[in-house]
């Protein structure tokens, strides 16, 4: 299985810079997710790995082989498409056998391999059907079988689960992850669903506006987001942001303050060199807070706005009085068993270890 290296890769369509100077690598057998909103360049990058697009500049390597001008059929790759791209005029069997026929395999061998892979994916009863005659979930499995049957060196996924319903998506998520780790095929997986990327990938490349913003393990992306975009994109509900904070020191400790709000910063804040100490954005995740009903130190007063019960969890939407009379909406996961009244006054206690500070102009992470 090859290692993939992407070096200073750019792809322009006319004047549009779809991908702009992106570099990353995928280790042998690794599962990497390219994550970002639509139009961020992740699919363009994937199609370039597949050889369907050629880079405008930069290089793509599989191991030490430069792949820029190698046509797809010599790359030994497979791809699963968002709309599955099953050939509508062929039966399920013919669809899965299609890549094997390109390899000029014998009939018996093709039959054996197709049966093997379809058994594994539990679609061996559908071989005579046309793609139109099976359900979306089954089509998805056929697409997966077609990708796996030729035992490729690299597997590429282009949002393969986004056409499935939520329940099936959760199921296939685990199944694809298991298949990939069993087979050990180097895989690149494009998605706009942060939950998919977090649960499946060993490393995530977060894309925004054609640029690679951050590349790291799910843990790093979640705990140490590089900027506000990554912080807001990962997690559901996303990170809460509050504007206009000042950093002040008091009794040898650092605090973020705004008006009468005062939140203690973690000890590691002392090692940060602050270029600015005013007008900063404070960020904390909904799951890294507690809610108190009585006033405590280092808390943020707020009013309950609306409740979103999820069965196991309860998301409390709170309004915090902002600067200049406008209020900010904050979402917090409440502890189980807590009850709230609308408009009730409560106090948010963020976990100081999990607090972030951002520069609102560059959107870069300070803390």
């Amino acid at each position, binding site marked *: 299985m090859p290692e993939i290296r992407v070096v200073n890769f750019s792809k322009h369509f006319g004047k549009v810079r779809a991908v702009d100077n992106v570099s990353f690598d995928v280790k042998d057998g690794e599962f990497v997710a390219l994550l970002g909103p639509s139009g961020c360049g992740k699919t363009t990058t994937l199609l370039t790995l597949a050889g*369907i697009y050629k880079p405008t500049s930069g290089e793509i390597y599989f191991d030490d082989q430069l792949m820029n001008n190698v046509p797809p059929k010599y790359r030994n790759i497979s791809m699963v498409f968002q709309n599955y791209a099953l050939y*509508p005029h062929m039966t399920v069997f013919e669809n899965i056998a299609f890549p094997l026929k390109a390899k000029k395999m014998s009939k018996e061998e093709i039959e054996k391999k197709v049966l093997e892979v379809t058994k594994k994916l539990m679609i061996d009863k559908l071989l005579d059907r046309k793609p139109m005659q099976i359900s979306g979930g089954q089509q998805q499995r056929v697409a997966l079988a077609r990708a796996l049957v030729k035992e490729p060196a690299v597997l590429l996924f282009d949002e393969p689960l986004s056409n499935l319903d939520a329940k099936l998506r959760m199921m296939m998520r685990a199944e694809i992850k298991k298949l990939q780790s069993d087979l050990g095929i180097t895989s690149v997986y494009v998605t706009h669903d942060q939950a998919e990327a977090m649960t499946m990938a060993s490393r995530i490349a977060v894309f925004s506006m054609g640029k690679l913003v951050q590349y790291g393990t799910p843990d790093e992306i979640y705990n140490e987001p590089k900027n506000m975009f990554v912080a807001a994109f990962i997690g559901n509900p996303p990170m809460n942001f509050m504007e206009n904070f000042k950093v002040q020191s008091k009794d040898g400790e650092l605090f973020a303050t705004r008006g009468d709000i005062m939140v203690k910063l973690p000890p590691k804040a002392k090692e940060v060199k602050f270029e600015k100490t005013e007008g900063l954005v404070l960020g904390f995740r909904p799951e890294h807070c507690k809610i108190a009903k009585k006033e405590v130190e280092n808390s943020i007063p707020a009013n309950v706005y609306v409740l979103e019960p999820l069965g196991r969890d309860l998301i409390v939407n709170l309004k915090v009085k902002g600067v200049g009379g406008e209020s900010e909406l904050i979402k917090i996961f409440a502890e189980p068993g807590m009850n709230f009244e609308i408009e009730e006054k409560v106090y948010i206690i963020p976990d100081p270890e999990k607090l972030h500070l951002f520069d609102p102009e560059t959107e870069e992470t300070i803390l």
Partner: protein
Amino acid sequence: MAELRLNFFQRNSSKISQAVMIIILVLITSPILLGYAWLILRSFSVDMVHGFIPTKLTLKNWRFLWQEMKGYPNIWRTFLNTFWIALWVMILEALITSMGGYALSRYDFPGRTSMLRFILVLHAFPSISLMVAIYYVLKVIGLLDNLWGIILLKASLEIPWGTWVMKGFYDGIPWELEWAGLVDGYGRFEVWRKIVIPLVKPGIAVTAIFAFLSGWSEFVFINTFIFSQNAWTLSKYVKGIIGDFRFADYGLLTAVGLFYVIPTIVFFFFVNKYMIKLTIGGVKG
């Protein structure tokens, strides 16, 4: 609440609207239907009274099928000529438009947009205005009074329109299918042949059908560029009957006319399902 009472028209609204629709359709199509009815009746009768009532039935008008007619070429030879033209116009057009349409749909080459516009203008251009120029071209390449001249001429005039139609069919095929084929280990040409062509079959069928019919019914070019009776087609044969040098034999005219449309009707009968697909538009898939 008071009981809701429906009157007669409300209760039977769907039946009534259907009946009205049928009456309207019959009225609209009656001129054509009556025309064909007259054609059929006249071809089997000696004469007609009151315009519509045959006096005596006969097969004499159909004698051209089994005996040589003086002053006319053999009907079967003429029939084969017509079929030959229709067939080759169909083959050439299906072949060229299926490739041209793909290129226009998938490849971004310089001049593509202007070509697309130009094609439509070309189709709007009345071919009759090209007569003199075509005469010279055919004369220079030695295809005057030759069926191949008509075939090439007809095909080249039909190809722009056919290419446009085929482009529409190709546009309906998602790129992902082609990409999947490339990734599955095939070259671009194989992908076109094995994946794309089977999916645009209805489009190819439709262009081929129209090409065949237009070749079958061609008259103006044959009347102008074909001189020898050996190369006559059925349309020219019909014209010959009402020609300038003899009295029109209406019995013969109707019989030949009917003979001329029979293959077309049979043809439509077989290709109906493809025609319906055209009106639905594009490819299912």
